[in-house]
């Protein structure tokens, strides 16, 4: 894996971990839209951004 893959791969791994950890550890009692629903939405958007950067220099060579 190249440097960029290692960095963004790690970012995604951390996001996945948080996707399990935050809702179950901290948000069990937050029964509002700004609880688990919001955190999972935010994490999903960060993942889209990470993929944007990961694939940024993919060329159009066939």
């Amino acid at each position, binding site marked *: *894996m*190249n440097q*960029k*893959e290692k960095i*963004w*791969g790690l970012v*995604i791994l951390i*996001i*996945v971990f948080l*996707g*399990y950890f935050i*809702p*179950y550890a901290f*948000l*069990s*009692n*937050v*029964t*509002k*839209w700004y*609880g*688990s*629903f919001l955190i*999972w*939405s935010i*994490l*999903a*958007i960060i*993942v*889209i951004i*990470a*993929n*944007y950067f*990961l*694939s*940024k*220099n*993919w*060329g*159009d*060579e*066939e």
Partner: protein
Amino acid sequence: MSTSLVWASISVYVVIAIIIAYLSRSGDQKSMAGYFLGERKLNGFVSALSYSATTYSAFMLVGLAGLTYNGGVGAFGFEIIYFMGVSLVAIFGPRFWLVGKKYGYVTPSEMLGDRYQSKWVAIVTAISSCLFLIPYSAVQLTGIGYLLAGVTDGAIPFTTGVVIATVLAIVFSYIAGIRSVAWTDSLQSLLMITTSTIVVIVIILHLGGIGGFFDAIEARDPQALAVPGNGFFNFWTFLGLTIPWFFFSISNPQVSQRLFMPASLKSMRHMLLGFLVFGFIYTIVSVVWGFSASVLFPDLENADLATPTLLSSDVVPPVLGVIVMVGIMAAAISTIDSILLTLSSLFSRDVYRNMTDKADDSKQLMVGKLVIPVIAVLTFLFAKLELDLIAVLSVAASSGLIVVVPAIIGSFFWKKGTAAGAISSVVLSSLLVIWVEATDGLLFGLKSGIWGLLSSSLLFIAVSLVTKAPKQKAEEFTQYVRQNMRSSRS
């Protein structure tokens, strides 16, 4: 829902889809790579829509809405973890693509067989995919049968729905192989994302806007907005469900084969990012449907009725409801036809070719085409039989396919991996998964997918360490990937 309106919409859909399938006929249809991979020339836009349609079966709008109905926001988290797993495409996509072009791979099993230098690796992984994916497709078919029967109060019988879906899946696969599948998939995705989003807007307005929507959920059951909430999504269930789905993008051959198809890495990028945007919207749509049904119809007997009930209710205008209903049917078909093509290519390329001496490309293609209707009929028969074992295998599909993941990761990142390691991990772990599913779905409190991943990883590593790796191939393969990854994306 009026039966004539349903028939009219199905007819319009069939006519448009067949026209599009015919228009897609271009280029080489006479080689394996032409028919099953579109000559590796798919553009990013079609790839993205088709990838989405193949991934998101009817499960999404019926099953995920149902899960939300039963278990609340945990269903959203489950789907988001899966969605995060698609990032594996960002790591494995370019690698599959590079070696696919260099060595001419048509299927993921073929890649594994060549990389580990053993035709048995290809045969075993191909057969294990068929074992889990045929029942999985059968369940999609029964889904269509129940959906059509459900919304028309039985006016369209279960069998009629299943027959329509089977025939359409065969037709869409046959007309131009992956090209007709990809283009009809694209039609279906565009139709679904537009209409299902409109349904969400209609429902949310009905419930008094976004604030009113969340207030209504909270008023009915505040626990629905947290995990474990009502207990449905306790942590271990959540983990057991999400682990197999996290690896879906590389474990399921009907989607990993897509990594061979884009015309360039830039097209693959469009496929990946397009899918992520699509998937995010679609996930929210399905979850909102499930929540809305739980607010509007809190007493349904079966959570899978959440979507049909919502669509045939007064809240959704009838024409819109029917269009979305036909769209769900198309979603199931677009999953089945992709699986049909992938399985027939696995059979002809990895089983037939490796079992006979003189199977050149055109013979393989002929066998592949002959096998398409055979697999479709098998799927149809499974759907009709409704055997317990089929239910077990289809539930086990996502867990069962996970067993190939260590061998796939190993092919790119571990030179010591061996054919014996790959074969033993796939065979023994598949059996373990089936056994766990056939007993009570849990072993020491853990779901089959977790066991599948643990056991296949351990077996792959342990058996590889005591057997001899194909050194030269491993070196050449990984070296090629490394060099090209550097030059394509410095």
